[in-house]
């Protein structure tokens, strides 16, 4: 066992030879078709010389042919009547709101020449404060999803036929509804938090007596809603204030990733996670969970347990805090110690502590309410003055609806924004019931699993085409306005409901009137629309800052009794949502599918996440202790399969071994395995990105009779199926043990702030001291020091606040036209992301600490890549940018080889479709390329491309450009305004998207810039691989954890220090 401080996977940890080899082979050539060369040289290869000559001849002829074609005549077609607010080439920004079920994020839509191309956070919103999520960033691509329905449809046998107009459709529905004969009508939607829509719905329901509205969340918070009804008399969720909490305890709530309102919470959380060197203070985050979640990986202290123990832990905590409950026995000593410590910390910070719980069990949530009451959270960190409206679905209502559908009492089912045929645990029962409903109408935008079972389909607009509003928190309204004319013949479902309720007005008019009345005047409304948010203006009063709810502890005893009856299993399954795919609604979004999961770094699939201990017992794989077994497991993308059975439902999934899970738990992400009932039409209906990605885990959702539960006892065994490949990006671009991360705990930092970076400082001094020099930048090199006379761009990334949420990764993809390569290519380490988030494990193997490090081109001033380019396609600008010129690149990849950060990406294939050769990608599909690449090259999808950024062709290197198009734009604005302060802080795509503000960017030559200020903190500011003297322009702020534990094996660190150098020396000849 090595004494590694930071490791990325088990091959890395055990330091096996084959892993070293694999890591050195950056481009993994053995996976290429060139494999047949077999090291024998081109003439002896299976592809003989004649073939080589044939290819040579063909490519010369093709190039000559392509070059000699007549230049096409281009047309330039101006407007007939140019709208005042459109100047071709200049982007317009419209405030709107990203809405996906109950999630709502106030955003600003960048619209260029009539096309929305980028989503930014709206800084005027006091809820999300300009933060975004990976899903909201990616949602602009959903607008151009080729699977979107293009007109209203009516079922015709097994197929659908187009309904020619909305009027015809309205008449059809009117006739159908008239013939229902008193059967009830149900409107089934995801959580609706739009005030005007709720009013529309109430009008609609009033028109049809006996009808009702059922809200259904694929992953629900019913448990909390019902528990709050018991404890506070309100079937609602309160607002949480993580920014006011000094102690945050989470019992399995992924509040930074997927729980309730993650973007809002990320902002709040980051506020207390930023370290100011003059006054180092941090909130303390303690996390109890069964799996390794993104939020858990950010915790200062983390404890693992069986999913069935969640209630017991809550009870134990409550008992320790003086609650009138008996603490159940907890066998695990570590866990018990954790509970004791947590209780002590909570006790010490009463009034500024918060406990949240991700369980959907009402009883557990009742206990959590009691804990929050005991620590004085109610009224301080929990605010009942404004409720959170992101989840309103009550599971029992949905169960009842499905039962009624099956008994035939439901006459009409109008479905919007939910997909129970996929996400309902007993989807067969739902589909059977739906067949018995005489009038089934889907307003969903695509032909999803539910829509294809409906008799009538009237697709609604995408949110970017819609008017509307959302109230994610009571009193905080966020408005929607269309950023593009509807692409297809679609109609807002609100308009349909209004028409069918006999109201002749359309939703747009209705909505405008609604708000103009509420706000007092059209002028007020116009202003609100421009801002995108309404917070305490007009007749709305701002919710009181924080107020408490009237607590009633009556339900506690019963809840505690019920918790005691929860049975545990030998193995247990826990279901979770990924930050990218979420509940599966955006599964056909290639950007989201290709975002690596923050923890597992797997793309395009779900899997059974298990611990090394689990793998050892069940798969007989000792990945942590045995080099050979670690090799067998890590070096190949194929992972052994597990057969998991819950309630008689079976899934066979590849096992992914991740440290830090409970040893009897299997964690599976929902949202995958989308497909169509008609397999032949799956690509067309579900989409080329979604089909084939993972398997559906929703059938594993169980019920305790009140709510759906996302964990259950399971039978797990080794599957007989062949190993299944997972496209994992981790250790692509491996740094070979060089120290890249520095961290410490808060107490050590306060005691000796300089100790954390002592190693780096020491290295600098070693280089300089013998020569009596002091300036590392100028004196430690033989290269001249090039001045940056005007601007010098630089970035600073705070590792303390980076949560790994990957919003930046998607933002970068959207801003820079980064190609989607598909699963096969990711497997070959050919992913194109300019910005990746490296995840490092450190410390205890059973329960390691995790560090996230966003890694992008460091724009080194002494860049190793620049020196080796034979054609000077990459060189340095006078503003400190490492420039990449695609049109000059000939694809030698020397630069990528020479990059110590492994951030350069090579276009192995023509991911974007060459115009000169039509259909040139098709022959590759299946063997080298996934269908999704064709989806990305659809004429519709291509509308998302940023026209200011070149789309790269095959055979060139690309990498982060620091969003040079934005830098150029900011300089142009500054020159026009003759104001240099406009280039002080520039928002590049990643820094703008970040919900925790961990990236600052700007002009380093300006001492007033954010990045200059961030770099002033010498005790935390470091450059990755600084000792190479490449002089990066990206600096990092070291991570500090608020824990009593020593971070990163401090005692081993001293032994560990020389290791990298020794290794370098050993490896030197091999390079």
């Amino acid at each position, binding site marked *: 066992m090595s004494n590694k401080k930071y490791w990325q996977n088990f091959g890395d940890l055990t330091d096996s030879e084959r892993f070293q080899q694999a890591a050195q082979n950056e481009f993994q050539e053995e996976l290429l078709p060139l494999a047949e060369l077999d090291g024998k040289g081109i003439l002896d290869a299976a592809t003989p010389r004649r073939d080589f000559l044939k290819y040579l001849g063909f490519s010369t002829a093709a190039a000559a042919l392509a*070059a000699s074609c007549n230049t096409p005549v281009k*047309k*330039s077609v101006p407007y007939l009547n140019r709208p005042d607010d459109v100047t071709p080439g200049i982007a317009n920004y419209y405030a709107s709101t990203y809405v996906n079920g109950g999630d709502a994020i106030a955003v600003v839509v960048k619209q260029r020449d009539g096309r929305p191309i980028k989503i930014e956070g709206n800084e005027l919103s006091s809820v999300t404060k300009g933060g975004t999520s990976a899903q909201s960033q990616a949602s602009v691509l959903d607008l151009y999803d080729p699977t979107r329905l293009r007109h209203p449809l009516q079922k015709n046998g097994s197929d659908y036929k187009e309904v020619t107009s909305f009027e015809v459709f309205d008449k059809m529905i009117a006739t159908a509804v008239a013939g229902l004969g008193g059967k009830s009508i149900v409107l089934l939607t995801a959580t609706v938090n739009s005030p005007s829509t709720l009013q529309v719905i109430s009008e609609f329901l009033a028109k049809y007596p006996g009808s009702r509205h059922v809200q259904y969340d694929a992953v629900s918070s019913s448990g909390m809603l019902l528990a709050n009804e018991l404890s506070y008399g309100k079937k609602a969720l309160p607002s949480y204030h993580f920014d006011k909490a000094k102690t945050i305890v989470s019992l399995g709530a992924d509040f930074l990733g997927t729980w309730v309102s993650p973007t809002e919470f990320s902002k709040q959380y980051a506020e207390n996670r930023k370290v100011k060197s003059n006054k180092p203070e941090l909130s303390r985050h303690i996390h109890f969970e069964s799996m390794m979640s993104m939020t858990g990986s950010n915790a200062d202290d983390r404890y693992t347990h069986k999913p069935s123990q969640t209630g017991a832990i809550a009870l134990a905590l409550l008992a320790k805090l003086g609650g009138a409950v008996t603490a159940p026995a907890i066998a695990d000593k570590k866990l018990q110690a954790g509970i004791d410590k947590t209780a002590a910390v909570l006790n010490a910070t009463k009034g500024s502590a918060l406990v949240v719980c991700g369980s959907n069990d009402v009883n557990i949530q009742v206990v959590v309410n009691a804990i929050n009451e005991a620590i004085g959270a109610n009224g301080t960190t929990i605010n009942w003055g404004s409720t959170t409206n992101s989840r309103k679905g009550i599971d029992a209502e949905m169960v009842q609806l499905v039962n009624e559908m099956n008994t035939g009492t439901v006459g009409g089912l109008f479905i919007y924004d939910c997909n129970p045929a996929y996400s309902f645990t007993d989807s067969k029962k739902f589909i059977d019931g739906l067949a018995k409903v005489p009038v089934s109408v889907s307003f969903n935008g695509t032909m999803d699993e539910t829509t294809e079972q409906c008799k009538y389909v009237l697709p609604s607009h995408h949110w970017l085409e819609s008017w509307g509003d959302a109230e994610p928190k009571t009193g905080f309204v966020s408005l929607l306005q269309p950023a593009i004319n509807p692409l297809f013949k679609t109609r807002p479902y609100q308009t349909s409901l209004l028409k069918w309720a006999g109201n002749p007005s359309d939703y747009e008019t209705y909505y405008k009137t609604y708000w103009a009345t509420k706000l007092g005047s059209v002028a007020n409304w116009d202003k609100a629309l421009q801002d995108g948010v309404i917070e305490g203006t007009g007749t709305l009063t701002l919710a009181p800052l924080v107020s408490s709810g009237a607590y009633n502890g009556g339900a506690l005893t019963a809840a505690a009794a019920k918790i005691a009856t929860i049975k545990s299993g030998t193995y247990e399954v826990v279901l979770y949502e990924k930050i990218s795919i979420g509940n599966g609604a955006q599964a056909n979004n290639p950007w989201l599918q290709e975002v690596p999961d923050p923890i597992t770094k797997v793309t395009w699939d779900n899997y059974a996440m298990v611990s090394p201990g689990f793998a050892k017992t069940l798969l007989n794989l000792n990945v942590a202790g045995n080099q050979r077994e670690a090799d067998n497991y890590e070096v190949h993308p194929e992972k052994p399969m597990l057969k998991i059975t819950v309630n008689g439902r079976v899934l066979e999934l590849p096992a992914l071994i991740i440290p830090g899970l409970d040893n009897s738990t299997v964690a599976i992400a929902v949202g995958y395995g989308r497909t169509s009932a008609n397999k032949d039409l799956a690509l067309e209906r579900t989409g080329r990105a979604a089909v084939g990605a993972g398997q559906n885990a929703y059938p594993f959702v169980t019920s305790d009779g009140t709510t759906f539960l996302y964990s259950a006892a399971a039978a797990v065994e080794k599957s007989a199926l062949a190993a299944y490949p997972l496209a994992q990006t981790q250790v692509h671009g491996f740094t070979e043990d060089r120290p890249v991360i520095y961290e410490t705990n808060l107490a050590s930092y306060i005691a000796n702030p300089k100790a954390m970076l002592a190693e780096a400082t020491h290295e600098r001094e070693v280089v300089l001291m013998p020569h009596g020099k002091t300036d590392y930048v100028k004196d430690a090199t033989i290269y001249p020091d090039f001045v940056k006379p005007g601007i010098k761009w630089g970035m600073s990334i705070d590792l303390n606040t980076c949560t790994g949420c990957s919003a930046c990764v998607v933002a970068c993809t959207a801003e820079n036209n980064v190609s989607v390569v598909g699963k096969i290519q990711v497997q070959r380490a050919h992913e194109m992301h300019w910005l990746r988030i490296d995840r490092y494990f450190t410390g205890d193997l059973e329960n390691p600490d995790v560090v996230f490090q966003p890694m992008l081109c460091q724009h080194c001033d002494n860049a190793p890549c620049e020196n080796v380019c034979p054609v000077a396609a990459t060189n340095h*600008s006078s503003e400190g940018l490492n420039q990449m010129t695609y049109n000059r690149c000939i694809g030698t990849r020397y630069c990528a080889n020479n990059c110590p950060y492994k951030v350069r990406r090579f276009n192995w294939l023509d991911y974007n479709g060459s115009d000169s050769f039509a259909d040139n990608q098709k022959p590759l599909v299946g063997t080298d390329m996934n269908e999704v690449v064709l989806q990305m090259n659809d004429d519709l999808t291509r509308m998302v491309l940023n026209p200011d950024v*070149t789309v790269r062709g095959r055979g060139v290197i690309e990498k982060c450009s620091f969003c040079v198009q934005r830098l150029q734009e900011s300089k142009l604005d*500054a020159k026009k305004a003759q104001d240099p302060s406009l*280039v002080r802080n520039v928002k590049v795509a990643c820094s703008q998207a970040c919900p925790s503000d961990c990236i600052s960017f700007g002009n380093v030559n300006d001492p007033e810039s954010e990045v200059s200020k961030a770099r002033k903190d010498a005790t935390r500011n470091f450059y990755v691989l600084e000792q190479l003297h490449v002089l990066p322009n990206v600096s990092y702020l070291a991570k500090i954890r608020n824990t009593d534990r020593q971070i990163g094996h401090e005692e081993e660190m001293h032994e560990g220090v020389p290791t990298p150098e020794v290794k370098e020396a050993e490896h030197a000849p091999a390079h």
Partner: protein
Amino acid sequence: MLIVCGFPVLFLQPSKDISPLLSLITTDMSRYRKIINKLFASFLFIAVFSINNNARAQDGEALFKSKCASCHKVDKDFTGPALQGWSSRIPSPDWIYKWIASPAKMIATDPYAKQLADKWKPSVMTAFPELKKEEIDAILAFVDAPVKTPPPGETPGGAPANDNSLWYGILTLVLALVAFILLQVNSNLRKLSDDKEGVFRGEPVPFYRNKTYLMTGILLLFTMSGYFFVNGAIGLGRHKNYQPEQPIYYSHKVHAGVNQISCLYCHGSAQDSKHAGIPSVNVCMNCHMAIKEYGGDKIFKEDGTEVNGTEEIQKLYKYAGWNPATAKYNPDNNGDGTPDGAKPIEWVKIHNLPDHVYFNHSQHVKVGKQQCQTCHGNIQEMPEVYQASELSMGWCINCHRETKVDFNSDSTGNKFYSIYEKFHKDLKNNKMDSVTVEHIGGTECQKCHY
């Protein structure tokens, strides 16, 4: 000497009995030399003259277009007389220079000038005192032998036909032929002389099997094909002088030249956006609702056909959906928000940059304060627009190297540049005399390619 006199030897076959012929040659040597000298000189003269002449005609074309073309055509009467055949009409060779310098003076004094003025009344020849004699010669040379610029679309990748390569080529060929003949003569003569002196010499190798000739030929072919290949490749995608036919014969000369409409009136977004933008039809209609007929000087296309300006305005009305009879827009019966029958004009884009080039008009117009003409040529004198500049990277870079940035540290300079403290210091200390675009990074890759 042998070389010069050897011309007829070419026709000789080496024979055993050569003495009479040899004597003939030796006796007539001086006569042949003269002939050859003359021939050679005339060749050279023709070649040199034609090249020279051609080169001047190039400038002449540009001058003609900028100075004369508004009133004169080469081969047709226009506002002024057709210029072709001028030399046969003028009374004395230097008359033309005087006339161009000061027509008014000539009308007053010279009878032919008076006659001309009377014929073309009321138009009066504009004076061009600034034109130098050589420039006038160039114009006149062009007028005598106008070189038509072919539309670039027709010769894709090829070298433009109006350059000198053809002449050079012919000259080279002729010279090569001469050299070849002379070498043959030389070799034959040597054989003869060797035979005479009794030195044994093998049969000369015929030229088509001579390795030196073959190698030279191959090398020549390689160099030439390489030259054309490289030139062709560089020319790919470059379309200088591209002048496509547009859906409406829109004359920039009439609008920007004669009527002095500011470029930015129609291309306003050049100040704000990366695109200069082609004005939407409603911008045209701002003026053309009132201006229904063309009443200016006659407009002629490049090929000499006359353009009916009023008809072109009618075309605009069609596009705009405007009814000139009622002076109203057509009603919008089909409900698409525009007058019925209206449709946008599909102009042919002339200035095309490759996809990997980012060019921003506002950067150049607003910040760099460049005139449109810097890149687009004398647009106000173009009847129909053509691409005046090469729009190649070298062309861009050259300008960036030479153009000075508004760095004045007094109040007139752009205050953004105040952050370039080093340059301001250097300017003050006279280490630099000016800051060019290149100094602030204007020739770096990612200023235009990203």
